[in-house]
């Protein structure tokens, strides 16, 4: 009976081992959704796997003067830069997670509109200041400055919303890194 029990335990350990290997093979971000049965034998090993995946794959962004670096993992590898008139494809980066990809599209549209209108607004303000600095009592000066300031406000609002969408996209991407 004891021998039977030992054999049974041995076989079940082999089964669990093969499942663990399967989990490791599926730990990359790109094939996460294909495997619904990631498995390990203990809570601790599952959590270590998950933290390891997160440490190496999870994304975040860090702003720098009108643009933002997209950074992967704990080591801080820069995988791309987004921002004013940058065309790094975030959607492709997070395509393994459908919800992340949808938010990445929102980011792309909002970022382009916001960048464009903010730039036009800033240009109008600069022209208005230049005209006013020449002491010319031009009636268009206040119109230029007010229209420019309005454009900057509208554009910055769109940029802020687009970065919120980027934050959401990366959140979903990181969420779908979890072994499932």
């Amino acid at each position, binding site marked *: 009976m004891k021998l*039977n*029990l030992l*054999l*049974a*335990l041995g*076989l*079940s350990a082999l*089964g*669990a081992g093969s*499942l663990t290997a399967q989990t490791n093979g599926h730990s990359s971000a790109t094939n996460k959704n294909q495997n619904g*049965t*990631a*498995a*390990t*034998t*203990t*809570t601790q090993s*599952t*959590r*270590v796997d*998950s*933290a390891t995946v*997160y*440490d190496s794959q*999870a994304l*975040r*962004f*860090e*702003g*720098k*003067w009108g643009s933002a670096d997209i950074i992967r993992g*704990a080591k801080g590898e820069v995988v791309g830069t987004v921002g004013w008139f940058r065309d790094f494809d975030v959607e492709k980066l997070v395509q393994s997670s459908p919800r992340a990809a949808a938010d990445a599209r929102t980011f792309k549209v909002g970022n382009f509109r916001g960048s464009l209108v903010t730039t036009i607004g800033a240009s109008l303000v600069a022209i208005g*200041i230049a005209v*006013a*600095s020449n*002491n010319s009592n031009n009636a268009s000066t206040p119109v230029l*400055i007010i229209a420019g300031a309005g454009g900057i406000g509208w554009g910055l609002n769109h940029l*802020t*919303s687009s*970065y*919120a969408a980027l*934050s*959401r996209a*990366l*959140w979903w991407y*990181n*969420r779908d890194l*979890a*072994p*499932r």
Partner: protein
Amino acid sequence: MRILLVAGLLSGLAHMGATFQAGAQTSTYDERALRVDAGPGLRIVRGVADSVVLNIGEFKRTGLADLVASSPKAVEQAEVFEKNYRPGSWYAGAGIALFGLNLGLTSISPRPTISGWLLPASVALLVYGGYRLQLAYRGLQKAIWWYNRDLKS
């Protein structure tokens, strides 16, 4: 035969247990993971429900460190945020105010002598404030990243 039956049962139990644990971990992330959101101002939301857990005002202490207290590295980065966010907001705010004052003075003739200094001073304040805010936002993003990471470990 009995050996195979017991082995199958044990293996199945192990499999079910691990799947349950992984599912529980995902639901922890779904319920507890944070991210930055933009509403009226900057705010931190939690989980798939997007419940707002922190509104970050420009000129007051935010309480981010308390929010991420369960993760030591997140607290470290939250302190970077706390240290830079308010000063950055004040400097940038002062820069915008001086810039507005400069715009107002351009319509006065003859122009006061002080107006010559207003534009460079406002630009300097805006740049320095922007630099401090940038440090703050980096700290914020890292704090949230580490907090969410530690939900999975």
